[in-house]
């Protein structure tokens, strides 16, 4: 650090301890670009639209972040998202009170997460495989049980309103859920012993074990947290659409992982935070809306996200390497 100026070394420290910084810079850059290219990008409706889409993806991504910091993956979040939404839809249509359906939906997510966690920890196999299996298995069950048909439920209630209703004009309550969850998880991660144990487990699980941390328990718990947040996100989206089809949530697992990685969290675990994910998710939502409003066909979204993802990881890796020197 001796051969760096005071200014550049304080910038280096900023990057080293703030994984979210790169995503924030990207967010600002993309925002500025779209302000010029997209008409009406700066309107309330446009911003609210971005936040609404980002919130549903973001609640999933929050759980994925937590789990990725623990050093594990969950590819089944998209399926869990659809599965829970479907349970809420079916129970609602059957006339069962919504809150019971909601609890059942979350219980199902809890169960999927628990099974993912136990199989991964007990048989010591990569969670990539465990959750890839889970993704196919539960999706298959979902398709088989529903026969491939969508379920609609047109009832309205304050419960659904609480999950994802309008307020202050174009904004939706899902945004409150999203920001609250990001805040809560980040506090747990950064300010509590449990967060410390989570970072340690992802950073070096053998060392953590030797230091007396119950690595397996932490992993299973975080698999459950991740799955339950995916389930919650599914219910929240159902409250917006009032319908679910059995392929709902397909591909969301990869979108969530992309947002998390853009937010600076390391794939291998042990490093990252929720604020980065917040920026990552907003960045993706902004690209989606901004492209359409700039007049580009919707297909371009995927292509752009692909580029952003790879660029973000290259930049984050370079920055971290540079900061450590």
């Amino acid at each position, binding site marked *: 650090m001796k051969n760096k100026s005071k200014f550049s070394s304080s910038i280096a420290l900023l990057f*080293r*301890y703030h994984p979210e910084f790169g995503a924030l810079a990207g967010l600002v850059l993309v925002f500025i670009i779209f302000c010029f290219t997209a008409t009406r990008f700066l309107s309330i409706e446009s911003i609210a639209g971005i936040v609404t889409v980002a919130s549903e993806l973001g609640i999933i991504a929050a759980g994925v972040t937590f789990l990725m910091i623990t050093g594990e993956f969950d590819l089944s979040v998209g399926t869990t998202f659809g599965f829970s939404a479907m349970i809420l839809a079916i129970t609602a249509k059957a006339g069962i009170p919504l809150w019971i359906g909601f609890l059942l939906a979350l219980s199902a997510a809890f169960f999927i997460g628990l099974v993912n966690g136990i199989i991964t920890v007990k048989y010591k196999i990569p969670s990539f495989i465990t959750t890839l299996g889970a993704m196919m298995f539960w999706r298959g069950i979902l398709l088989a049980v529903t026969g491939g048909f969508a379920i609609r439920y047109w009832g309205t209630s304050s419960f659904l309103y609480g999950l994802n209703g309008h307020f202050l004009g174009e904004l939706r309550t899902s945004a409150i859920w999203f920001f609250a969850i990001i805040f809560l998880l980040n506090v747990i991660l950064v*300010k*509590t*012993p449990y*967060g*410390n*144990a989570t*970072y*340690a487990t992802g*950073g*070096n699980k*053998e*060392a*953590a*074990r*030797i*230091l*007396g*941390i119950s690595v397996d328990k932490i992993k299973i718990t975080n698999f459950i947290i991740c799955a339950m947040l995916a389930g919650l996100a599914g219910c929240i989206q159902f409250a917006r659409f009032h319908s679910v089809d059995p392929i709902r949530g397909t591909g969301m697992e990869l979108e969530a992982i992309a947002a998390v990685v853009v937010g600076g969290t*390391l794939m291998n675990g*042990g*490093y990252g935070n929720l604020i980065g994910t917040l920026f990552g998710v907003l960045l993706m939502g902004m690209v989606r809306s901004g492209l359409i409003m700039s007049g580009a066909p919707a297909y371009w979204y995927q292509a752009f996200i692909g580029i952003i993802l790879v660029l973000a990881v290259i930049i984050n890796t370079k920055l971290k390497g540079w900061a*450590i020197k």
Partner: protein
Amino acid sequence: MKKENFLIKMTDISKRFGTVQALDKVNFTVGHKEVVGLVGDNGAGKSTLIKVLTGVYLPDQGEFYFEGKKESINSPKKARDMGIETVYQHLALIDLMSIARNFFLGREPVKKYAKVINFLDRKKINDVARQALKEIGITIRSIDEEVSVLSGGERQAIAIGRAIYFGAKLLVLDEPTAALSIKESQKVLDYVTGAKERGLSVIFITHNIYHVYSVADRFTILEHGKKVGDFNKDEVSAEDIIEVVRTGKRPV
């Protein structure tokens, strides 16, 4: 070895992995304020013995006494709670976490918030870690620095400082000087002597006989899972020990 007053006494410890007899009725003791050099060639059973001692493996057979009391250590946490601290070469610290967080990992001081949630006591964590490391003579640039930027010697120093701070009675060092520069090795050896002066016992596992010879009081030599012998420092020279490790036989 005359007085029956040991900090650690392990008798007839056996451990088998499949067809490999990793430990075969090994007796092992560590006295109070004693530095024991545990030496032997690769595959001699040093690591297995230490992992039994620290609760990572359960032995198939054998008894364990801590301060004269029979105990069974079934988890690393229990070993740690009893005052046995292990510093593994590559597993001492979490690279991506700060020095302060590493220092208290698994034993964080907390402040209760609203009587429910335990928050890390950041001020205490930083102050105590900085002070404790300073007392042992470890100077670091910043307590918030990530461990990945530290040298091998600095890492060992922090792990040893942590063990001393938490009141360890026995410090187990696994190859603490491997891959260290000469200067850094000497520093680590000084910490070992310092730990002994503070009343700790130390088990020093190594290939480098010259390093351990300068600080140890006694040597236990293993070979193919069996104990070749115990030697007090005044009985043998470093060359004698190397010879025993090389041939696997007691000197005649």
